[in-house]
């Protein structure tokens, strides 16, 4: 089986490389058969990658411990879900998983776009198959998951595997990496279309639509991946937080930020034919930041709890980045004329300018995160002294930038395209601004003294009102015109322009998340050794340790502390934080217990045992408002899905356009 698996990887690598050459040859020699052959090679590479993945997965699920990868990442008593997760739980398997996703994306992108974008597809094949070949090359020659354990000349198997990292044995971890990979790898598609359009000097904005839709889909996956990662950190790592500004966390955030900037600025290109160079730069930066992030995770550039074992593959990524950025820069420079702006900007106080500001702030935020992540490496390189940069630095730098961005989230939709009059500004701003000020004053009067939190809540009120006003105004117009109820009118409004109102829902989601982030300023934490029967009071809650029970299972041993939680004398529930010791890996870990409520979480950690081993040490966190982050996450997904649905108007236009075009004689512009 191991030979078949490796053969499939090798064939997939060869087919991907062939696809690149055939697509290039087809274009150079104007040979459609070669171009078609390249498309078929993409399909064949996908089949081979799928076969290789199936063989590895089969080995994991059947506990084939003669595979070195299976022996080091799985064990017999592991739950089925986590056995599947072992596929991407290690370096070799995750690179194969990455390659399989890349192959799937290539297959889908090529076969859905081969008619609509027939001029672009050969170049799309080149970019996507090239990236795929790079990763398959790493799997084939540097990180082979099909290596077997040898004892002399014989293949041998160990009795049981070392098991999956205990921290990864959580349902969230079964979903988080695939989502993140779908995001990371998915950005290859819009980049490939953008580069292809650049090379072919594609006229019209059709490719922009395709690129935008693909970007939105992959942005959604990336968002879900990041948010699931945050949730996993919150419920598994047991430090009471969800974002530690770890280099690997930052690596996932960087392309998300530039992708967000692209989704905004691409509107300028669609509506006004502006910012073409900028958009190409943004989508290229997003793609290369994905590759850069992968290099950080696997190449040993920075140290992180999330990083895979340090390996030698970092150098390959550096070369890939140098060559890729070089080629992209060449095409941007050589196609400057094609990328020239078609319209002029009339005023700083306009929707166009707000997009510019939005992009600048997002890029500054991206730079700040990248800067902080790489600063230890740079400081060591330039001064010989490694200067560490932790969460406090990132918070100090990014919080003001993020608040500015939140302000722009509210301001942007209030500006008109081209130019905004003073009267319009006054009319649109007066109520949101007044509510924001009143909110700030009320919070200070109520005793809030945390500056950033007060500003954040005020801005949240501001943005909320602007979004609600947008819905209300539009809804009222439709309500009057078609004499329907306001809720029906709002649905109709959203369906008429799903992209715009889906975008507003995403803005609302960001507001909810900011409410959750600001709530962190009021977190309460307490730690105490507790004997059975002991009580402690934290944040208005009373916690009483009822008992500590110990249980054993084939996979792990666990000690569970049963703690009764009461508030104002009323019993709420018995919470049960755990401490586990996994037999296979001998790694201890803790399982927090969280009581989720809108007003705040009660978060208990079995943090350790007293030095005599008699009593548990319990950490209690009261995290107000944190659940708004997760609620915002759901709204973000909903809003993005709404934005992905074709608008009613666009749908109708799509159906009638060919007939209308045929009826009109094609005449020179100006007729």
């Amino acid at each position, binding site marked *: 089986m191991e030979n078949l698996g490796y053969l499939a990887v090798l064939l997939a690598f060869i087919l991907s490389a062939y696809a690149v050459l055939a697509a290039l040859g087809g274009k150079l020699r104007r040979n459609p058969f070669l171009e078609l052959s390249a498309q078929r090679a993409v399909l064949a590479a996908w089949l081979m990658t799928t076969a290789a993945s199936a063989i590895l997965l089969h080995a994991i699920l059947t506990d084939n411990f003669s595979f070195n990868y299976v022996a080091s990442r799985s064990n017999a008593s592991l739950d089925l879900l986590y056995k599947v997760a072992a596929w991407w739980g290690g370096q070799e398997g995750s690179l194969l998983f990455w390659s399989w996703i890349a192959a799937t994306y290539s297959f889908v992108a090529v076969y859905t776009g081969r008619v609509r974008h027939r001029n672009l597809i050969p170049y799309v094949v080149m970019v996507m198959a090239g990236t795929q070949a790079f990763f398959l090359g790493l799997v084939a020659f540097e990180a082979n998951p099909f290596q077997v354990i040898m004892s002399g000349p014989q293949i041998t198997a160990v009795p049981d595997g070392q098991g999956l990292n205990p921290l990864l044995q959580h349902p969230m971890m079964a979903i988080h990496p695939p989502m993140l990979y779908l995001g990371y790898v998915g950005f290859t598609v819009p980049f490939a279309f953008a580069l292809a359009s650049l090379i072919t000097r594609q006229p019209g904005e059709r490719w922009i639509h395709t690129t935008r839709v693909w970007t939105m889909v992959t942005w959604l996956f990336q968002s879900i991946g990041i948010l699931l990662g945050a949730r996993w950190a919150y419920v598994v790592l047991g430090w009471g937080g969800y974002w530690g500004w770890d280099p690997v966390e930052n690596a996932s955030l960087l392309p998300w930020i530039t992708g967000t900037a692209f989704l905004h600025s691409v509107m300028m290109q669609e509506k006004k034919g502006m910012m073409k160079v900028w958009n190409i730069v943004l989508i290229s930066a997003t793609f290369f930041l994905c590759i850069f992030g992968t290099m950080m995770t696997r190449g040993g550039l920075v140290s992180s709890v999330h990083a895979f074992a340090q390996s030698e593959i970092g150098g390959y990524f550096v070369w890939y980045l140098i060559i890729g950025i070089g080629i992209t820069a060449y095409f941007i420079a050589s196609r400057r004329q094609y990328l020239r702006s078609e319209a002029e900007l009339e005023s700083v106080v306009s929707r166009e300018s707000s997009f510019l500001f939005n992009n600048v702030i997002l890029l500054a935020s991206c730079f*700040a995160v990248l800067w902080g992540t790489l600063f230890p490496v740079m400081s060591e390189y330039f001064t010989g002294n490694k200067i560490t940069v932790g969460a406090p630095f990132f918070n100090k730098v990014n919080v003001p930038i993020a608040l500015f961005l939140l302000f722009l989230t509210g301001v942007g939709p209030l500006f008109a395209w081209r130019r905004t009059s003073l009267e319009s500004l006054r009319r649109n701003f007066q109520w949101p601004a007044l509510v924001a000020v009143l909110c700030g004053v009320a919070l200070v009067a109520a005793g809030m003294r945390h500056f950033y939190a007060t500003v954040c809540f005020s801005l949240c009120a501001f943005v909320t009102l602007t979004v609600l006003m947008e819905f209300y105004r539009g809804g009222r117009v439709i309500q009057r015109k078609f004499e329907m109820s306001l809720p029906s009118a709002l649905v109709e409004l959203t369906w008429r322009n799903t992209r715009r109102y889906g975008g507003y829902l995403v803005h609302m989601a960001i507001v909810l998340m900011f409410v959750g982030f600001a709530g962190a300023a009021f977190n309460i934490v307490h730690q105490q050794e507790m004997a059975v029967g002991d009580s402690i009071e934290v944040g208005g809650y009373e916690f009483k340790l009822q008992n500590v029970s110990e249980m054993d299972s084939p996979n792990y041993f666990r000690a569970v502390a049963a703690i009764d939680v009461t508030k104002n004398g009323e019993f709420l529930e018995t919470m049960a934080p755990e401490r586990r010791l996994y037999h296979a890996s001998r790694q201890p870990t803790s399982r927090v217990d969280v009581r989720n409520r809108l007003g705040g979480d009660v978060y208990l950690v079995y943090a350790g045992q007293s030095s005599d081993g008699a009593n548990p040490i319990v950490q209690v966190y009261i995290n107000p408002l944190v659940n708004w982050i997760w609620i915002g996450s759901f709204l973000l997904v909903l809003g993005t899905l709404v934005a992905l649905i074709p608008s009613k108007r666009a749908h109708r236009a799509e159906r009638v356009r060919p007939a209308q075009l045929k009826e009109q004689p094609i005449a020179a512009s100006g007729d």
Partner: protein
Amino acid sequence: MRHLVTSLLLALLSTSLHAAVPYAKLRELGDRVTCQCSGGCSYTVGSCNMLNCHFRDPILSEIEAGLEAGQSDEAVLEAVYAKYGSETRVEPLNEGFGRIGWIAPFASLLVGLAVIPWVVRRWRNAAVSRPHSDSVPGDVVDRYRSQIEEDLDELE
């Protein structure tokens, strides 16, 4: 037997207790020291929740001892940085190369914001120009191409 061994192991991996100083205070100062435990821990000593963290517990004990001795927060932290190295700092010092660390993100933001008026002025002054392909206006070519694409779609 396995049960007993496991219980003993868990007990050995116990966390020492810091009772004399309020935990919130320990956590506050601990959050200003980067944890250096194995595996590339990028959390702070305050937030690192690795059960057998060999780096966190001694530092928390030293912070606790310093506070009990009446030292100021800064004095306690400086003693920790001096003993465990500058890599335990959570943020760069505002001097030397560290100052660049602080300035660069905000400088990039300011440069970006300063560039916007320039871009607006440039766009405002620029004549509306389109990319030309031979002598046929670009939008005509676009419409022809779109028509061809639509027709080919229908054919397929």
